[in-house]
């Protein structure tokens, strides 16, 4: 029996015009999902008629299933109901609209009691396991193996090149499923941004003297300066510094 793969997609927004479009992260996940051998289903929870959804068809999906949901629906429960018998759940790491918290893959995984791997750059399926290369900062990568079924969230830097084709957009279909039932009250109060964020800092009660001090005196920040010695000793000093701070293996 072939592998059942589900891809969770959201609707993104053009950052300049605000027009609905496919979410960049989810398109990367779609490109990876298309390269895997298996039966792929795309799933979205939200408004069925959203014009941004058709972009996923253009990027290569044949069929997109939509759970009709309003912004206050409990979409995690609705999605989890549809995902009960899938082997691999893929999604982008963060949405471009809505809460944009990057929490959804973790919530879905927790609800279905499945392991989750975030920040995936590429994945290969080996038997009933999946091997994931994870993105780490500073040029590091990590290889992780996990038994299926599992949830994998794709990192935006995944090395894929999605291609948009208008013909595919016309050929694909969008299907509505049974609407989401549960609802959730949101604790968030939303307003337009009117000012830059203020840094959280300590309120300092300073006497005039110390405020004057900090205004007139500058703390010299320069580090150690090595002038004396031969070039070999100076090279040793650099290596000693690197070793002292555990920055090199030499």
């Amino acid at each position, binding site marked *: 029996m072939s592998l059942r793969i589900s891809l969770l997609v959201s609707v993104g927004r053009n950052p300049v015009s605000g027009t609905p479009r496919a979410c960049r992260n989810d398109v990367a996940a779609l490109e990876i999902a298309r390269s895997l051998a298996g039966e792929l289903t795309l799933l979205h929870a939200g408004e069925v008629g959203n014009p941004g959804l058709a972009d996923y068809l253009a990027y290569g999906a044949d069929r997109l299933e939509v759970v009709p949901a309003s912004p206050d629906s409990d979409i995690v429960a609705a999605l989890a109901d549809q995902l009960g018998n899938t082997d691999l759940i893929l999604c982008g790491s963060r949405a471009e609209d809505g809460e944009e*918290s990057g929490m959804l893959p973790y*919530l879905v995984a927790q609800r279905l009691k499945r*392991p989750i791997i975030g920040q995936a750059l590429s994945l290969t399926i080996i038997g009933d396991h999946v091997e994931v290369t994870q993105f780490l900062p500073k*040029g590091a990568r990590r290889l992780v193996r996990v038994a299926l079924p599992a949830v994998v969230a794709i990192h935006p830097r995944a090395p894929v090149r999605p291609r948009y084709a208008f013909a595919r957009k016309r050929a694909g279909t969008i299907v509505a499923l049974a609407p989401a039932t549960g609802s959730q009250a949101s604790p968030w109060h939303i307003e337009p941004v009117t000012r830059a964020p203020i840094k959280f800092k300590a309120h300092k009660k300073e006497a005039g003297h110390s405020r004057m001090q900090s205004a007139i005196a500058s703390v010299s920040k320069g580090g150690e300066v090595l002038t004396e010695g031969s070039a070999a000793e100076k*090279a040793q000093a650099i*290596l000693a510094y*690197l070793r002292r701070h555990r920055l090199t293996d030499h």
Partner: protein
Amino acid sequence: MQDAPIPRRNPRRPAVLTAAGLKRITLGEQGEGSVFGAALPAEAAAKPIRLTTEPSSALLAVVHADRGALDGHARQVVAAAALLAEPSDAVVVLVFGALSDDLAPLGADRVIVSPDEAWRPDYEVACLRAAIDQVQPRHILFPDTEAGGGDLGRRLAAIEGDAAAHVAELDRSCATTRRRGGRLAARRALPKILLLDPDIVDPDLPFLGRAETASLALPVEGSGKLCDLGRQSVPAADLPLEEADFILSAGNGVADIPTFLSLADAFGAAVGASRVAVDDGKFPRAKQIGATGKTVSASVYMAIGISGAIQHLQGIKACRHVIAINSDASAPIAKRADLTIVADAQDVMRHLLREMTDPGRNDMEEGS
């Protein structure tokens, strides 16, 4: 008629020693004694300890240490916990990975270290839940990083609920995030779990923490479903400069480009350059670091033959350790660098290269 009283002034009242002589600028300063030029360090040493009584509740900051130290983002999260704490709250820090930093200046009262390098998220969540059971924190703070804190925080948030991720603004009562590319702000009362974005907190605190070491009954290792097969690093040459961890950068003072490139190869470092070196055609434009080039955030930035114009220093603001090799000790890079070597770049590069490739031979030469 009585004379007006003569104003009395303490001739030994606090003063600072400046280039122009002794200055008696003593706005608002009380007390006696003279402090000659030492006003700033003395004050810095005399920070009070925040927690004066036995704590009745706690805040928990969870961070990952890298090579024994906390990065800027992790330090901000610990400081944020100290700033959120009420007088009766202890600030408990749970550190994954070995730690050699002192966390007292960041306001940490109790430090729990779980010295473990492999990535086992199920075990980390178990440790975290054991710590939560022991400490009973009001809030749990994580750095919202791509690896480590961001992942662990979301795992916990999925279990516990009540969380805010990508917090872009924090104060004592509410957390704010940005939506739709920064056009909308979403605000809510402080949830239990907070994942903080970088640079939203100033880690400079006017008080100290107790920084006691605490221990935790670590849970037994379960059989996690995830198996870490190890880390790989991308060759530095293939890496974009912005992502590189070790950068060797050349400026006008580097004449011997082949030695420089083989040194970068020996260190496994990415290659950068200053504007002058790029303009001379020694390096491609993509290697330029600075205001018109790239902004980098490496752990080690080695500037060879770079004087450090302000435009160049802008590009290396986020670098952790800066090492400069320059023939001029008064160049501006010396103010930024943690270690400045005043020497001709060519000689030092040659010796460094010999040390890196063949350390034994160099020792013999020095001995003879």
